């Protein structure tokens, strides 16, 4: 359970993993990011990536799924106002397996909205070689388990 009170600054949660295949990379990109290096293996060969790579937004959406499946509490989560400092550091290619680690940087109860807290997390995404492929700093809103504890 990850209500506001359950989140410890400095603590990290690890997600499960996901392996990308070429068909899924192409299907996502056809819908949302149809650049040649995401949809056309031939063109991708000639690009600066040297082969087909996943859209960075496909990686990001997949990380969201990993977080929902293993790191975010659906009873407590109230969504997110956004994120900062997102970097794509290495391409994600067919056959690559990613997993994410989410570390709480800080948290504070809302002053204007009783029962709600917000926290900032650094989310780091690694491939099967342990290389950092993507990172961002996410803001999450969540319920307090005990709203009375806000009056501290």
């Amino acid at each position, binding site marked *: 359970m990850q209500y506001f009170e359950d989140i410890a600054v400095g603590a990290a949660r690890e997600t499960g993993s996901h392996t990308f295949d070429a068909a899924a990379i192409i299907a996502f990109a056809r819908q949302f990011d149809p650049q040649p290096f995401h949809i056309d293996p031939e063109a991708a060969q000639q*690009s600066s990536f040297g082969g087909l790579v996943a859209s960075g937004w496909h990686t*990001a959406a997949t990380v*969201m799924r990993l977080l*929902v499946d293993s790191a975010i509490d*659906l009873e407590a989560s109230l*969504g997110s*106002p*956004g*994120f900062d400092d997102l*970097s794509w550091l290495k391409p994600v290619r067919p056959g690559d397996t990613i997993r994410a680690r989410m570390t709480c940087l800080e948290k504070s109860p809302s002053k204007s909205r009783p029962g709600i807290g917000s926290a900032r997390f650094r989310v780091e995404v690694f491939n099967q070689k342990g290389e950092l492929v993507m990172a961002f700093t996410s803001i999450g809103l969540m319920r307090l388990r005990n709203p009375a504890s806000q009056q501290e």
Partner: protein
Amino acid sequence: MKYLEDFAVGQVTEFPPRQVSEEEIIAFARAYDPQPFHLDKEAARQSLFGGLCASGWHTIGIMMRLMVDHMIGEYASMGSPGVDQLRWLKPVFPGDTLHLRGEVLEVKPSRSKPDRGVILTRYEMRNQKGEPVLTMIGKGMYRRRPAASAAAGA
């Protein structure tokens, strides 16, 4: 084909409107963001959002598609090193029509790699009521015009 040099600071692009359907909101959320307020109308009504709304990552995907179809696709794109300051300001509901606008903030030729450079663009998406739903600073990497990069390397 257009190159880094074809971007100018202050250049504004207005993208065609894009309506969002309930079916696509639910399909995206099932695959990538299965939280109740993106999947289930009843649960969404009880949530802070007050109704079913698109995953923020879906809104980003819709924005990216507009960018590729109406801007990036005409340029020698080399991908993106990242984005910054993304904010989801209002929920996107089924039937909403999104209007995207981009303004180029900086055009920066690379110092270490003379064949490329990065542009910074501030994007803003508004709904049909004119309310901003998403803002972001995007970074795009583009090839320089081949003659220019040859001269820079000489």
